[in-house]
């Protein structure tokens, strides 16, 4: 072991750049995973190198709506506690408005779902816990007793010490990285070879960028992009406050989040620290962050811009006037602290798409740092982590989402949402449109409401279909009529239900151009595909294969459609939201011998789905090719000509109807659209949005969605997607898959129906996803692996006359007809297990699809 040295080794298994909470935690867990020669560099001094770790407010509120973030936080809290650097003080999130009261009730659902002790408290109780607050502005409080403050610098020091005890760790402070050298392999993908510093060079194949706000700058040295921007978070310290001083403690009162003011207040010794996410977004460039020498306080503690904080001071004085509104308590410290903001507010973790061996561990808050370190170490060692990290994977970004302008636009838009009330379907408004299909203009003419997926503009529903609402009233008013609560109907339209019913009656055309298309070819293609997917890839030419793609631990990595195009050629089609991750996954696993080539055809192809009982009639009227059930059976693909457009047609459906996905050359997309629209007019064709494709149609058919039902924490066995036989050929995740098959089933994917929508006031409410499923007695349901049951997807089933929820249930609970509860916005609603496993509620034998 070597500590704090100026002599660097010539070679290391891994070099971690950045000695903040993430870097320190990562080296510790890498050592735990058996990595032996580890170097930790920082250009700043220790223990505080001057990054965001050194000025963070260091408190942890464990409850987040995101399961991924909550799990990382809980894991981090356990680690901080083990290190002895965690002080539990409790925390209260305060609602000043109606809307926030609802949000706090929603937080209760998340707290229950993720198993965190919390309660809603009234103003009296809130003031009892934190007596200096103005009771009059408090309407409701969300109290989490386990809220804590931590000392991340001390945690880092302890982790370095413990790492050094078990591994060959070199810690080099005041060491600046000058370059990261790469070498380009046969696949054309560069790989890390060495790192150059002002204290010498180190040969290594693995470099981790854990540089916080500097990460983009360091990644660039290797030719990679880490999409984040440094942004200002303002904080002030006000004191001395005798009431706080007399506690003699660093923190003796709960931390307050004044949610509607987008602020927090916490005791810090004799001072009250006041922080804000309410000010205008103030973005910096990684290259403009001052050096250590040039910085007044530290490179990430920039001069306070007082004018941005005026409004927040008024809010703080309103809530904490009793101790803040005094002439003898002054603003003793005020900074514009820099932290990292990403385009979608999630961390940026994983191996960079551009360079093999270059890992990102960036945009991580103090509350997630140790957990991220542990998960990333697992990921780097085993290819997968215990907690599903797909939402944080650096590979989720398409190239168009990694550029400076986009990052800044989204960071500006997202900054004030840090404490905001963010709807699960909430859309970004800036930096749009990015990617548009050839149908876009036609869709606009039809009044499409566009949602974004993977940067693509996709119609969610069409205003032009509003008349269908009246037409479909016969199905029951409750399915086509508006949802009474604004929250439930936000980013939603009843038109989706009407489009759904019209599709089931007639025929719909759906823009699926956001699909990603990969061409995989070469003499090694069959072997390669066998290794990549769970299903047997060696099928006859023309055959469609729906298959899970597994992570090395046997959990889900992706699910997608594969077509055997030729003996030595496959087409892979995957969802727009997953395309970037899947492309990088497939590319990274190409054999080194060059026997397989990978081509991303996404930008060459557009896709139009045509589904419904009359789909064959529509298609037959514009093609000379045989589209009958004999000539074009289900689960096959053929090239046909539609009008004058050559099309790769796939007889498949995600909505359970007869029909095809039509894949056409991008530049002929418009012609295809017009041809189908015209041919469909006599058949009553309508354009339908993704609301039908992704939610109502899909859920009626019980189809699982990647990222919702399918995550790396669940196996195909849990998901009901296990195949009859395990194929001979080895494939990634096989071992875990086989193990899951062999053991007693743990949980099963179920479809539940909501039996009564009425809340205590009689208003009809609609859960949106993420809510806990509870036993009839109101207890949390957890499977024997500790995985909680929660709503993975929620949406209407207009054709089955029920509002549907999908959830994993432990096998002993997963019985059809079993009655349970779902907790939504502070109330509980009865639900019934309608389906266990893969059999859909609608058209259980798939007769429509196979017609």
């Amino acid at each position, binding site marked *: 072991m070597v500590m704090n040295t100026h002599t660097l080794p010539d070679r290391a298994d891994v070099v971690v750049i950045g000695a903040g909470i993430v870097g320190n935690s990562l080296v510790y867990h890498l050592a735990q995973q058996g990595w032996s020669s580890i170097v930790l560099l920082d250009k700043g001094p220790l223990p505080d190198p001057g990054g965001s770790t050194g000025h963070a407010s260091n408190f942890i509120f464990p409850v987040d709506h995101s399961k991924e973030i909550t799990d990382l936080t809980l894991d981090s809290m356990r680690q901080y506690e083990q290190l002895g650097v965690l002080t539990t003080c409790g925390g209260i999130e305060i609602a000043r408005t109606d809307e926030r009261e609802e949000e706090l009730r929603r937080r209760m659902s998340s707290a229950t779902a993720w198993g965190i002790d919390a309660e809603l408290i009234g103003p009296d109780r809130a003031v009892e816990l934190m007596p200096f607050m103005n009771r009059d502005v408090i309407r409701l409080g969300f109290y989490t007793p386990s809220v804590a403050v931590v000392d991340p610098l001390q945690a880092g020091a302890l982790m370095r010490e413990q790492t050094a005890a078990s591994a060959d760790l070199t810690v080099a402070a005041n060491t600046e990285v000058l370059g990261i050298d790469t070498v380009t392999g046969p696949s054309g993908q560069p790989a890390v070879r060495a790192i150059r510093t002002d204290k010498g060079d180190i040969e290594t194949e693995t470099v981790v960028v854990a540089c916080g706000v500097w990460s983009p700058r360091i990644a660039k040295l290797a030719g990679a992009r880490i999409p984040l921007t440094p942004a200002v978070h303002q904080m002030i310290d006000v004191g001395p406050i005798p009431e706080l001083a007399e506690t003699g403690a660093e923190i003796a009162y709960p931390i307050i989040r004044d949610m509607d003011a987008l602020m927090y207040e916490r005791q810090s010794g004799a001072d009250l620290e006041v922080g804000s996410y309410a000010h205008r977004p103030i973005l910096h460039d990684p290259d403009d962050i*001052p050096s250590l020498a040039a910085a007044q306080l530290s490179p990430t503690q920039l001069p306070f811009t*007082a*004018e941005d904080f*005026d409004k927040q*001071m008024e809010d703080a004085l309103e809530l904490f006037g009793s101790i803040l509104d005094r002439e003898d308590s*002054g*603003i003793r410290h005020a900074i514009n602290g820099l932290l990292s903001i990403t385009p979608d507010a999630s961390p940026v973790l994983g191996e960079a798409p551009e360079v093999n061996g270059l890992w990102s561990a960036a945009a991580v808050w103090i509350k997630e740092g140790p957990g991220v370190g542990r998960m990333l170490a697992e990921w780097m060692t085993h290819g997968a982590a215990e907690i599903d990290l797909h939402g944080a994977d650096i590979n989720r970004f398409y190239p168009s989402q990694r550029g400076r302008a986009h990052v800044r636009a989204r960071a500006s838009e997202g900054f004030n949402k840090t404490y905001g009330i963010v709807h699960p379907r909430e859309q970004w408004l800036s930096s749009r449109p990015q990617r548009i299909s050839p149908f876009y203009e036609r869709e606009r003419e039809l009044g499409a409401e566009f949602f974004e997926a993977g940067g693509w503009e996709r119609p969610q529903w069409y205003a032009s279909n509003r008349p269908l609402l009246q037409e479909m009233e016969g199905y029951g008013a409750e399915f086509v009529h508006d949802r009474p609560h604004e929250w439930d109907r936000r980013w939603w339209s009843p038109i989706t239900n009407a489009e759904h019913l019209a599709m089931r009656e007639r025929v719909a055309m759906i823009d699926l151009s956001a699909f990603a298309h990969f061409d995989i070819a070469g003499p090694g293609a069959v072997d390669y595909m066998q290794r990549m997917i769970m299903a047997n890839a060696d099928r006859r030419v023309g055959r469609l294969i729906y298959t899970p793609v597994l992570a090395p631990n046997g959990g889900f990595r992706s699910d997608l459609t594969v077509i055997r195009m030729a003996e030595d050629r496959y087409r892979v089609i995957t969802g727009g939201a997953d395309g970037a991750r899947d492309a990088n996954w497939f590319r990274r696993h190409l054999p080194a011998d060059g026997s397989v080539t990978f081509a991303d055809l996404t930008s060459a192809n557009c896709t139009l789905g045509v589904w419904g009982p009359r789909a064959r009639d529509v298609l037959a009227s514009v093609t000379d090719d045989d589209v009958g059930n004999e000539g074009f059976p289900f689960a096959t693909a053929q090239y046909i000509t539609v009008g004058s457009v050559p099309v790769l047609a796939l007889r498949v459906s995600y909505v359970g109807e007869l029909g095809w996905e039509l894949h056409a050359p991008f530049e002929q997309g418009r012609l295809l659209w017009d041809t189908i629209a015209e041919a469909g007019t006599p058949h009553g064709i309508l354009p339908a949005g993704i609301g039908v494709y992704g939610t109502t149609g899909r859920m009626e058919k019980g189809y699982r969605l990647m990222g919702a039902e399918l995550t790396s924490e669940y196996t195909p066995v849990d998901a009901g997607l296990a195949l009859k036989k395990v194929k001979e050929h080895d494939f990634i995740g096989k071992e875990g898959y086989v193990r899951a098959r062999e053991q007693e089933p743990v949980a099963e994917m179920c479809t539940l129906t909501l039996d009564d929508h009425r809340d205590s006031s009689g208003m009809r409410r609609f859960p949106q996803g993420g809510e806990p499923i509870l036993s009839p007695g109101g207890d949390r349901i957890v499977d024997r692996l500790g995985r909680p049951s929660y709503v993975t997807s929620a949406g209407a089933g207009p054709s089955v006359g029920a509002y549907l929820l999908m959830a994993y249930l432990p096998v002993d609970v997963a019985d059809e007809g079993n009655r349970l509860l779902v907790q939504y916005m502070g109330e509980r609603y009865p639900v019934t297990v309608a389906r266990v496993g893969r059999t859909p509620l609608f058209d259980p034998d798939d007769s429509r699809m196979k017609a």
Partner: protein
Amino acid sequence: MQVLVCVKRVPASGGTPQLTDDGVRVDTRNLAFTVGPHEECAVEEAISLVATHGGAVTVLSVGPAEAEEQLRYAISMGADRGVLVDSGADELDPQATASALTAAIRQLESEGGPFDLIMFGNESPDAGNYQVGIRVACALGRAIVGGVKGITIDDDAGTATLHRGVADGVEAYEVTLPAAVAVKEGLNLPRYPSMRGRLRARKAELAEFRARIGTPGTPDTEGGPGAGEPVELVVHRGGLRKLRLRRPAETQSETVLLGHGSEAAPAVVDILEELDVV
């Protein structure tokens, strides 16, 4: 008593000053601005003097329009009003600064009577010319003591006793008011502005003058202010002109490592013995 405090907008200390590429000024992109520690003490002292003896505190600054921030800071600490002499972005030489301040004080005193005490920082933390206060006091015909770390006012006698540290002790000076004083950090512990004070300061109205560099030989009164325009004060350049800034050459010598922890004690004592101090 009426107290005037003259303050200068300067980059806050901390870090090593970085120079702009042309070497003419300090690169302040990442720096906060302040009035400097001496002047913070001056403001604090003025506020507490007025609290004891009655009256009001006026803060006056000659500098760029942004110096408004420093005036508001002083107001947030408790000063009653702020006066800005906008002299543009370029730093004035000490004679010009003094002449601008003198002109402004004459103007203010013509309106509101004399200031009993005019306070300065002993020197500015950036330029460090050590003379502006003295020049202003001389021009106004008032006594001034520098380096002051203690002020006592005798209301009845109309005098102030000013204490300053010297190498071997403390000297006390008496001045007859009105007078001036240049103070040093250590005079008091300046308060931090309260939140309410900050909000008050943001809303405070500042009086504004504009400094115009006069041309020798032309009358100072040329061109009065237009309606709503700030009063124009004519100032004259002095004989000291900054050309450029540079960093002193650092004599980089190898540090001799005597050892780690208490084991190094004998080596330390060897050095003390060499110096013949033990």
